[in-house]
């Protein structure tokens, strides 16, 4: 099992970073899209979704994602 980091570019809702737990690259894409859709009443059209990093699941593993507008 890995903790995956994916980058998502959408046509209307801006860029996202998705972090999901999955046991394969394929499922990581699927879970990331699912999480993205759950965030929106109308799911945004995905322009590009990329898997960029994976880490073994261990206590304390995670990602820090820089944002420009908090």
């Amino acid at each position: 099992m890995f903790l995956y980091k994916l980058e998502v570019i959408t046509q209307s809702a801006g860029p996202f970073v998705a972090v999901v737990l999955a046991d394969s690259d394929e499922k990581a894409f699927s879970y990331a899209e699912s999480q993205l859709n759950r965030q929106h009443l109308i799911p945004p059209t995905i322009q590009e979704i990329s898997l960029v990093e994976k880490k073994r699941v261990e206590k304390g593993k995670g990602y820090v994602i820089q944002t420009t507008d908090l």
Partner: protein
Amino acid sequence: MSEQQIRPWETDRDKLNKLELVKLERDGLDIIDKIRKLAHQGYGAFSEEDLSFFKWAGIYEQRPKGNGLFMMRVRIPSGVLNKEQARALAAISRDYGRDLVDVTTRQAVQFHWLPTECLPDVFDRLEAVGLFSYQACGDVPRTIVGNPLAGIDPDELIDTRPIVRELEQHFLLNREYSNLPRKYKTSVSSNIYNTGHAEINDLAFTPASKEIEGEEVIGFHVWVGGGLSAKPYLAQQLDLFVRPEEVVKVASGVTTIFRDYGYREKRHHARLKFLVADWGAEKFLEKLIERIGPMPKKGTDRTVGWNAGYFTGVHKQKQPGLNYVGLLLPVGRISADDLDELARLAEQYGNGELRTCNSQNILIPNVPDEKLDGLLTEPLLDKLTPNPRTFIGHAVSCTGIEYCNLAIVETKARMLAIANWLDENVELDTPIRLHINGCPNSCGQQQIADIGLQGAKVKTEQGMIEAFDIHVGGSLGPDPAFNKRLKGRIPAERVAPVIAHLIEYYKANRQPDEKFHQFVRRVGHEVLQTQLDQILATTA
């Protein structure tokens, strides 16, 4: 480690991460005996905790984890290898490692696919020829990188082989250093072109001289706290001059500072670079002097450039009548048979030595003038050519998804394809160093490349495809800097033409003798970004 001696970090166990607590209970090097005793029982004989200590023996579980197959790394200090050692490596690879040997960016070699049961035999075979996988991984001093031309180099101030040997003996299996906060990488080179990649090591010695009592003394300057990985950091130079006979004392002092004051609360914040970044070079030097006594201040820096560890071709040694022949190992990979044949060539034409390079290549030293022609007509040199084309001759690759648990994409075959395409399609009179990495970590050292590629997977209508981010403008000293990412992820199939376009732009706009990384820094990153944007907008 002595049971009576309490180290500073042991007094506040709340500030230790989970592995640190385990490291207080068992010395990582104990795993070597355990592997010797239990490996015949197979993978199941080892607990999860045992497996986490396999690194101290130079062994990692291979992808996918849990199937009882291992990657093993073997230390090759400064890259110096004799024919018996080369043959032993080839035989291990043939018998247990599916015929593959990889030369790494730290002059080490790696086997893949080793079954659990063979590990004690591999230890024995290595030890019999004076090689060790021990401490090639783990929280310990790793293999010492340096000048592959040590002792034969017209561009070195002194022969660093005795120093590297002494350091290797000082560090290897020494339980004073078997529990460091994290991995610890040392570089020793007296070559004036920075063959040891000083700025990206935890501890590095570079050539220097100083007038002391009216006499010019040759020695070293010292750099601490460099490293790549997810947070790359260039080492800082200490105001210190080191005579050759004092290298072990200084290395020992720096290492014990790291051991005793290095951070152990979070593993990702434990490398020496974090301590150096917090303390600064001045405070670090104060602490070092407290430990090792007064030292002279810096002398004259004798490094004049950076050759990136490339030595392909035929070159004169400092010994008249002798030559070294640098050979290309495409992306560092060689078969057992070819390594055996290299050992034969080294014996027949040289003095039986080979040298591995941190550019993932290999060279045959000590070839007399009269034997050169014979060596150059050997069939193996058609494959491992001393005269590679520009791009394949300067291509470096990490292991990639083929063996690595954390890689996102395949890299070695991809780099071969990209470099060969560029060699077929782009005319270039000056090298451009290409490095590829399958994840954001840095086994392929992508941050120091002229053009660094970092892999990702992208979902498309045709399914998942491999893609790469392009980073431009990296180099080590003088004027060292890591490369920077250009926005826009490139499908793998388009990477080579996109790079070709960037190179054509460089060729059209460079100044005389301007290298690619110098060009990027002169014109600015945004100019290259604009070029990439245009390429992506105008080509399908």
